[in-house]
């Protein structure tokens, strides 16, 4: 009996011991498992970084790229000439990564840094805060004569190569340079403060010109681009089937143009010769850095004016019948990259691929709106082409057009003027159309001679630079800025001019652009797309609404890669439909939710619709219009065995592709080269010594490790 009790006692004690050990094991797992990775203690990742990417055309590569594993350099903050000179003349710890302020990031400084051969990367500070990112006097990475090689005056002795007017005086051409190191901007103020205070000032700043000792704070910039040499090479490599693992090297730039015929026509309508007025604007621009394409002056101002003019004309649509001309509102994409959209449109015209088999002889005249925000002398300026004036018919038509618009302008606080007759057209899509056929054409811009926009195609072409932004408490959606009221007058001018040119009669007094529409459009395009106007025109689907609500910054005005969704194109197509279309109540079978290219006479589009009186739900509407989209994709990429890559016929721009994890910027401390070498050699010596030791141990194992004598049996 007693023995059995002892057995039970022992069993219970063993079980208790097991439980205790098990619980201890679990506890230690939990406490040790809540540890940090060593890499997160070593590296600080800067997430708000935007890189300069590589693009290619038929003959060159431009932009920036890093080494495969990134470029590592000691951080040096340059905010005045002293720090710049210190880096170039005395800095001993090369390679460096230069941290520049917005005022210092210009061609001169960058060239000096490049020539010193001491830097391996550049970071530029670009936050929303104007104290850390002051606006420079001017900054334009475009060239001084944009689009000249592909334009109307290429090879023209008198007007070509900006002989008469240098359009973009402030252009430094940095966009078209091939940098051998990466350039990035940092957009988050906390992170720029971290870089300056915790990295540079703490470890790297020289004390009275004397360089600091290691360890120093370094930055690794990774932005490895896959494409190289030129478009022809990278497209060939992407399409070549010799690779077992097909790789994407680059993608062609391109998207869609948006076109919309204005007047209502019967089912059997065929356009007559010289019966259509082209009212054009471009939809895209570029800048040095990815996704930062604000384009306020170039060309949101033009887009807004044209859309507002379309809306104003809508009320008088019944004045347009088979005795008047038609207006074709055209929004071209890819124009900033050697006129992708207009070249493609003309190519499609030749092939009969446009709706109504549109051709150049259907076009009676062209009116293009260009930049409109920085009006020189408070006026909008009318430019015409001097070469087409050689034809007396066209010359008199142009003069008529100019006097018509000047008259209309007189009634609108004298807002318009005409430039010198001997001056050529500024960079504009009209140039491509005139290359095909000479028709009377005018371009309306805000500059009389050289550009008034000091930030042409740069990251500074913002709402606040064109005075279209306020710090109002209601977010400014309804607040009418100076720019908005001025652009409304411009839109009214445009609407009345188009009316008179199309119908031949003076415009009615009531034909005026809506100031509210212009204000709303400026807000939605430049400040935030999560606005009521856009909510009205998007498809009535949950995903569309959620997508819009999640947008934190304005849509980028960049043509982007062909095949990728471009929100600007979609929203402009919807806005144009909304402004010139009619609400279709009965026959909604043909109504679709997605915008597509169609050759039909009329298109039907579902929209979310205006807010109901309960301010919560919307009435879904079907809108009937003659708005559609056409391809804006360079024929160079569609023609088999195209061999005009070095020529100036079709745009050849592509954008390099990059791996998903290829963009990175992180900060860490680095030791001196001496320390790195000594650690490495120490390790190697240790390995060799241990190998030798083990060899000898192995050889003399018998002597060293005596076998235990087997127990006698």
């Amino acid at each position, binding site marked *: 009996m007693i023995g059995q009790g002892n057995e039970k006692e022992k069993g219970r004690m063993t079980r208790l011991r097991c439980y205790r050990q098990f619980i201890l094991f679990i506890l230690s797992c939990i406490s040790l498992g809540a540890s940090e990775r060593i890499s997160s203690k070593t590296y600080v990742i800067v997430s708000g970084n935007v890189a300069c990417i590589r693009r290619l055309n038929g003959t060159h590569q431009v932009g920036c790229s890093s080494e495969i594993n990134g470029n590592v350099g000691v951080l040096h903050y340059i905010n005045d000439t002293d720090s710049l000179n210190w880096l170039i003349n005395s800095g001993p710890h090369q390679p460096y990564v230069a941290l520049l302020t917005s005022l210092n990031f210009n061609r001169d400084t960058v060239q000096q840094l490049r020539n010193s051969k001491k830097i391996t990367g550049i970071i530029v500070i670009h936050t929303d805060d104007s104290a850390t990112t002051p606006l420079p006097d001017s900054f334009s990475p475009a060239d001084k004569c944009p689009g000249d090689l592909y334009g109307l005056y290429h090879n023209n002795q008198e007007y070509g190569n900006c002989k008469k007017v240098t359009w973009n005086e402030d252009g430094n051409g940095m966009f078209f340079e091939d940098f051998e190191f990466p350039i990035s901007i940092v957009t988050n103020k906390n992170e720029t403060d971290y870089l300056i205070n915790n990295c540079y000032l703490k470890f790297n700043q020289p004390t009275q010109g004397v360089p600091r000792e290691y360890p120093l704070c370094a930055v690794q910039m990774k932005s490895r681009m896959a494409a190289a040499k030129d478009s022809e*090479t990278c497209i060939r490599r992407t399409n070549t089937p010799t690779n077992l693992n097909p790789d994407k090297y680059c993608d062609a730039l391109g998207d869609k143009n948006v076109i919309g015929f204005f007047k209502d026509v019967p089912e059997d309508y065929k356009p007559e010769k010289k019966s259509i007025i082209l009212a054009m604007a471009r939809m895209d621009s570029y800048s040095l850095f990815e996704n930062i394409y604000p384009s306020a002056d170039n060309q949101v101002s033009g887009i807004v004016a044209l859309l507002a003019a379309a809306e104003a004309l809508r009320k008088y649509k019944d004045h347009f019948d088979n005795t008047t001309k038609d207006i074709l509102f055209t929004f071209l994409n890819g124009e900033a990259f050697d006129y992708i959209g207009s070249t493609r449109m003309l190519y499609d015209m030749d092939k009969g691929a446009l709706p109504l088999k549109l051709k150049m002889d259907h076009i009676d005249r062209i009116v293009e709106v260009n930049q409109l925000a920085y009006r020189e002398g408070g006026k909008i300026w009318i430019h015409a082409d001097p070469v087409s004036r050689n034809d007396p018919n066209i010359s008199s038509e142009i003069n008529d057009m100019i006097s018509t618009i000047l008259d209309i302008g007189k009634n609108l606080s004298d807002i318009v003027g005409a430039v010198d007759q001997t001056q050529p057209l500024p960079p504009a899509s009209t140039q491509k159309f005139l290359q095909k056929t000479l028709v009377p054409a005018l371009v309306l811009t805000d500059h009389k001679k050289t550009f008034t926009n000091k930030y042409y195609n740069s990251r500074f072409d913002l709402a606040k630079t064109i005075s279209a932004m306020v710090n109002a408490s209601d977010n400014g959606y309804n607040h009418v800025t100076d720019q908005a009221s001025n652009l409304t007058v411009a839109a009214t001018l445009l609407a009345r001019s188009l009316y008179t040119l199309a119908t031949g009669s003076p415009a009615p007094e009531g034909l005026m652009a809506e100031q509210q529409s212009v204000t709303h459009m400026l807000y939605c395009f430049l400040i935030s797309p999560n606005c009521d106007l856009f909510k009205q025109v998007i498809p009535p689907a949950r995903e569309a609404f959620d997508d819009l609500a999640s947008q934190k910054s304005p849509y980028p005005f960049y043509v982007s890669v062909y095949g990728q969704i471009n929100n600007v194109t979609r929203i402009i197509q919807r806005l144009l439909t909304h402004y010139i279309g009619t609400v279709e109540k009965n026959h909604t079978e043909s109504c679709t939710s997605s915008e597509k290219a169609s050759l039909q006479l009329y298109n039907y589009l579902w929209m979310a619709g205006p807010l109901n009186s309960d301010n919560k739900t919307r009435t879904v509407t079907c809108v009937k219009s003659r708005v559609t989209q056409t391809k804006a994709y360079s024929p160079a990429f569609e023609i088999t065995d195209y061999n005009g890559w070095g020529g100036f016929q079709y745009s050849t721009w592509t954008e390099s592709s990059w791996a998903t994890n290829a963009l990175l910027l992180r900060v860490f401390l680095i030791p001196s080269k001496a320390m790195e070498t000594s650690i490495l050699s120490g390790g190697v010596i240790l390995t060799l010594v241990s190998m030798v030791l083990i060899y000898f141990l192995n050889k003399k194992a018998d002597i060293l490790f005596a076998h235990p004598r087997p127990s006698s049996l």
Partner: protein
Amino acid sequence: MDLAKVKDEDKLNLCRKYYIGGFAFLPFLWFVNSVWFFREAFLKPEYQQQKQIKTYVIRSMIGTAIWIAIITTWVVLFQTNRVAWGITADKISFLIPKGIP
């Protein structure tokens, strides 16, 4: 396989197989042949099959040297001229490097 435990005729057979095989554009067989049978051919005391093995090993060594020369020349030529050859170089490449011309 430990050659010490193999019979002499089998050693000769093995050496011959590797020698013949190397002619099928497999220079590594010749390389292995020359290294593996080196001791057998030159350092071991005389036995009947050794003369034949010696000829095979010497010929394998010559073949290896020729192949090393060919491959080295081609690799150096290609690496230095790949960029200059442009389209031709791309046509004969399986893996085209990214990010460089």
